[in-house]
């Protein structure tokens, strides 16, 4: 096998003491940065670029360091999701849904270890996918024109109905809120500012990291303030038991089908430029819920609800490297930063990268394997350490979390305005939580809103105003069919059948419009 011998060459490149040391450093720093709210993988990588420059590293070692940070951050994001109900970064948002309830049931250790294994499975198979399928997958990316992207994002929003089993109207409202926030800023298709109120800080739009940190982390602080000194006061004692820190084989076997399915799904989502890891974890969770959640345990601490998004987002992280390496097109915010690094190192990503710089590509892929194994080896024993976080009384922990969030945002953008917006989001998040409005659709709306609108307009614009172009290809039709048959109809029909339950309103259809 030619590929395997290339890969062996790659290992020869990657297995120097220096590179192993860099991978270890990157994995460690990445895990920490991923776990800290306010610092996601893209910022984590960006922060370490100067370090790579200062150390005077060559192309391959720099890439090894930075992709280890990338993979590490994807692992790390889950930690604060599970322990604190605060996603460390946007792809880890879905892990909160079942991870935190598991922690509350005294299974924090199990949730952490299981999610570590799921992350490994996702990243491991995605890396193999990168080895064998990269050239073929590029063709998949080329099947997606603007109309198909629009259908894909519509599918993502259609699955929202499946996620929060409560009041569907509130999901719809939350999605509208998120989409509405995404519209803020200069409209790329006409160059006119929208909803900026003449404020120059808003011209670039609202950074979704600001939204996510405000909505999740700061609102959590407010909730603690609210409950202090009442019968629900939990701020002065360790919050919960940790439970065992090694998952049983039975549990892993139980979750294996979930992990494998979501790995495939997440990987595909990652391959599509513009979709990225967040979509990967989101779709993985919602599809898996639709598929296997027969007893309604998702959202209440179902281990599969932890395994699904973690396998999905780590697989998507690997998948996002496909268009970056093979097309020079970033599939996510993080790969955009990595791409800039590649260019700065005199490497032109693109169709010829595999043949022109095989040492870089295969060295990188080998480093991904090594980093991934390191991360598993690092993360499972460290579960005990991570859970110590829960021993810190929240009255000390929560201010630290809040301050770290501020630093993360300010250190990247240097903007007090962003911090004010973040506080605003914190208050909004608290109110929404009180009113039982789910936060996930808000974030999904801000994350995908622009891409969704822009692809819609591109498609219609290219076809000179013919709206039928939106269902103009078999792929687009298939995506619409999945969205409608798989997610919208069950809500509508289910509502009719089970009339005694609260009837979900028709406007779920509007979500997919």
């Amino acid at each position, binding site marked *: 096998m030619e590929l395997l011998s290339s890969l062996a060459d790659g290992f020869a490149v990657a297995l120097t003491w220096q590179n192993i040391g860099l991978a270890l450093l990157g994995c460690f720093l990445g895990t920490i940065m991923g776990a800290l709210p306010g610092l996601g993988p893209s910022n984590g990588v960006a922060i370490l670029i100067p370090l790579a420059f200062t150390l005077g590293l060559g192309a391959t070692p720099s890439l090894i360091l930075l992709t280890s940070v990338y993979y590490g951050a994807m692992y790390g994001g889950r930690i604060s999701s599970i322990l604190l109900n605060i996603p460390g970064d946007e792809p880890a948002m879905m892990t909160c849904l079942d991870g935190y309830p598991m922690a509350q049931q005294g299974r924090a250790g199990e949730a952490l270890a299981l999610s570590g294994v799921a992350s490994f499975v996702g990243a491991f198979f995605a890396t193999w996918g990168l080895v064998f399928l990269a050239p073929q997958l590029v063709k998949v990316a080329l099947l997606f024109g603007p109309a198909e992207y629009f259908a894909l994002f519509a599918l993502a929003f259609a699955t929202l109905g499946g996620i929060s089993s409560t009041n569907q109207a509130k999901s719809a409202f939350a999605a*509208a809120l998120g989409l509405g926030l995404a519209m803020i800023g200069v409209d790329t298709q006409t160059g006119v500012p929208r909803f900026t109120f003449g404020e120059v800080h808003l011209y670039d739009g609202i950074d979704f990291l600001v939204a996510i940190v405000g909505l999740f982390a700061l609102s959590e602080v407010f909730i603690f303030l609210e409950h202090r000194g009442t019968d629900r006061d939990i701020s002065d004692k360790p919050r919960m038991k940790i439970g065992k820190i090694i998952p049983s084989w039975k549990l892993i076997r139980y979750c294996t089908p979930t992990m494998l399915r979501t790995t495939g799904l997440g990987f595909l989502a990652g391959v599509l430029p513009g979709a990225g890891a967040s979509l990967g974890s989101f779709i993985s969770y919602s599809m898996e819920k639709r598929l296997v959640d027969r007893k309604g345990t998702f959202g209440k601490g179902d281990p599969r609800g932890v395994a699904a998004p973690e396998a999905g987002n780590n697989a998507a992280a690997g998948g996002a490297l496909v268009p970056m390496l093979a097309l020079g097109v970033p599939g996510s915010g993080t790969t955009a930063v990595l791409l800039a690094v590649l260019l700065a190192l005199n490497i032109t990503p693109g169709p010829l990268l595999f043949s022109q710089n095989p040492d870089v590509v295969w060295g990188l892929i080998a480093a991904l394997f090594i980093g991934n194994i390191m991360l598993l080896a690092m993360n499972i024993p460290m579960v005990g350490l991570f859970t110590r976080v829960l021993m810190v009384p929240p009255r000390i922990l929560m*201010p630290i979390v809040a301050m770290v969030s501020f630093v993360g945002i300010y250190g990247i953008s240097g903007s007090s305005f962003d911090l004010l917006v973040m506080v605003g989001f914190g208050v909004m998040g608290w109110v929404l939580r009180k009113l039982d409005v789910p936060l996930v659709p808000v974030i999904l709306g801000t994350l995908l809103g622009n891409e969704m609108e822009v692809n*819609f307009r591109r498609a219609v614009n290219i076809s000179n*105003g013919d709206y039928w172009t939106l269902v103009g290809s078999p792929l687009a039709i298939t995506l619409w069919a999945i969205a409608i048959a798989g997610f919208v109809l069950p809500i509508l029909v289910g509502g009719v059948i089970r009339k005694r339950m609260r009837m979900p309103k028709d406007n779920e259809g509007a979500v997919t419009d």
Partner: protein
Amino acid sequence: MSDRIFGGIGLILALFYGWQAAIIQESFLTDTVGPKMFPFIIAAMMGLSSVYFLLKPDPEPHWPRAGRLAEIGLAALVLAAYAELLPVAGFLISTAIAAAYLTWRLGSGLIESLIIGVGTSVGIYVIFRLVLGLSLARGPFGF
């Protein structure tokens, strides 16, 4: 009742959003769809779901007493003030104050809060500024 109020606010928000969308200054160079259509759809979606809350409210959530609301409002104000103070007073001082305040309000003693506040501030500074090299706010004293 809360949901009804929420629905009312949501409806006002939707109307405001729709109005703001309507007054978007379109340039001469517009695409087929234009910059307004999507915002209109969003406003409609927001409005419809708000009407739903008005008609079919969920059970009342458990709201804290007025004192607690003030507590949360004050914390938000302190954090907003922190955001404004950062570029003026520098990272270490502002962060120590904000962290100490939060720690105190979450139930620590006054002296303890001060120590924790300073500790948090210095700890973050060491990790983010000195180790990771992030550019944090520089006050009059350079930190």
